[in-house]
């Protein structure tokens, strides 16, 4: 009997399949399915001998990883059949819509990872899902198929190689955001801040949820490494998904803390 959650020592999982999503992004399907995960929740991925890092679940049994540094590079060296450790799922996910609700999903870069299962769950719940997906260029767009399978998809690329040239906000400006019941956002922090400002202007912040990234140490709400100002909310436990209202006047887009706790400008 496999556990639904792994809240204590890391579970050993093996890599069942690796999918190259783009030059720097791969999806790792692993040998365990978190049947009760909420889209937006994360797992702590233990690359033994290196580090343990948070990753959103891109499916019940997959993470989708962008290679950025030591741990992710080491993960990219692993092959099918290799294994790593997993704890989770942790944190608070995106809130699911009721049937008939209109949901707007706004994903930038690897932010599409936790939003793809959300879009699918929202679709399954009978919501009307529309997605705005942004990336640097056409080859970096993640999960176009999964998003378009559940509803309308608008795409933006920085270089204009596909969809609107520019940022997700350039697409958003053309939409009537007030027509949506829920708005779910995840992406690089600068992208999320632009979206935040836009939604604030349009006065729809209370319908929006944002998934934040901060430096995680414990990942389970005890150490305090990931707390944000001025609320003191823990990104790992009270988040990573926060409502727009919770983030009003927050450090979002201004600074974050590094592993030592020092404030670092975004």
């Amino acid at each position, binding site marked *: 009997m496999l556990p639904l959650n792994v*809240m*204590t*020592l*890391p579970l*050993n999982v093996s890599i069942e399949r690796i999918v190259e999503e783009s030059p720097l992004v791969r999806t790792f399907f692993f040998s365990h399915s978190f049947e009760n995960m909420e889209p937006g929740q994360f797992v*702590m991925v*233990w690359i*033994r*001998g*290196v*580090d*343990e*890092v948070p990753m959103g679940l891109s499916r019940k049994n997959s993470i989708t990883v962008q290679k950025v540094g030591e741990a992710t590079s080491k993960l990219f060296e692993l092959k099918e059949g290799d*294994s790593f*450790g997993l*704890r989770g799922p942790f944190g608070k996910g995106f809130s699911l819509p009721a049937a008939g609700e209109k949901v707007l999903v706004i994903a930038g870069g690897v932010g599409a990872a936790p939003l793809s299962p959300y879009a699918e769950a929202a679709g399954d719940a009978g919501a009307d899902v529309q997605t705005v997906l942004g990336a640097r260029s056409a080859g970096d767009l993640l999960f176009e198929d999964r998003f378009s399978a559940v509803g309308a998809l608008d795409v933006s690329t920085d270089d204009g190689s596909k969809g609107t040239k520019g940022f997700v906000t350039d697409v958003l400006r053309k939409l009537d955001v007030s027509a949506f019941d829920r708005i779910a956002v995840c992406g690089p922090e600068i992208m999320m801040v632009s979206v935040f400002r836009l939604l604030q202007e349009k006065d729809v912040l209370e319908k929006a949820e944002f998934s934040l990234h901060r430096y*995680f*140490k*414990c*990942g*389970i*709400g*005890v*150490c*305090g*490494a990931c*707390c*944000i*100002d*001025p*609320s*003191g*909310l*823990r990104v790992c436990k009270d988040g990573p998904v926060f409502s727009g209202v919770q983030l009003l006047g927050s450090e979002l887009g201004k600074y974050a*803390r*590094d*592993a*030592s*706790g*020092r*404030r670092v400008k975004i």
Partner: protein
Amino acid sequence: MYTLTGLELKNPTLLAAGVLGTTGASLCRVAREGGAGAVVTKSIGPVPKTGHPNPSMVRLDCGFLNAMGLPNPSYPAFLQELELAKKDAGVPVIASIFGGNPGEFAEVAEGLLPEKPDAFELNVSCPHAEGYGAAVGSNPCLVEAVTAAVKDVVDVPVWVKLTPNVSDITAIGNAAEAGGADAVVAINTVKGMAIDIESGYPVLGNRSGGLSGKAVKPVAVKCVYDLYTALEIPVIGVGGVSSWEDAVEMMMAGAAAVQVGSAVYDRMDVFSEIGAGIEAFLQRKGYSDVKKIIGLAHEMV
């Protein structure tokens, strides 16, 4: 109101060092939303430290293991956090500090003085940071010297946090008292380790670390009990407290107040819950004052 080394506390529960104590905002949250009677900051040192690689904390069947490695932004960068905590927490804020020798301890204490912490807690007891923590805290001479050095430069109460990883914790407690400590805090985590049997790797990034939570409560109760006998100064009890019953037990062993760390895992408002539980207990049992239960176990023979 409870008085602890001259500080006024609305209840005898304090946030333990290193737990939700990295930012001023989270210290305020623990005080306001959590209901803590006072809060202790993350241990702050002379230079920025990122700490050990992850995993830095894992939950076990019984308790938690951690090896954070004293991550901290150093005292100059922490001043702004302390300022915020002092401004908004509404309860006493105790600065936990560490260093490798008496001079460093004094430097950090002086460095934080501008933001007026209500007391200092000297961490001479972290079990998993080379050259810091327990390396200092298992040496009575060094503990006395460190305590005296900080006492020399500050005029607020100085507490000394002790490690249980010694043959005789009272010898270290006596050294702290001799150095002028206003209270001791017992205990820091107990040396421990877990290994992932599928891979053979130690689970913590630092390989080994410190045990906290439920597993260590009996160890902490015993240390507090022994220190209460050996010392004149108050003992602050910490280790595995997660309910008012645990807090009462710790106080009966001799704790003037309790700190709560790992139990914030379950709920943030564990402090107000414990505070209310203690009050209700005192009332049910007809104790006129919390002082009646402090050290009570010593009288029951």
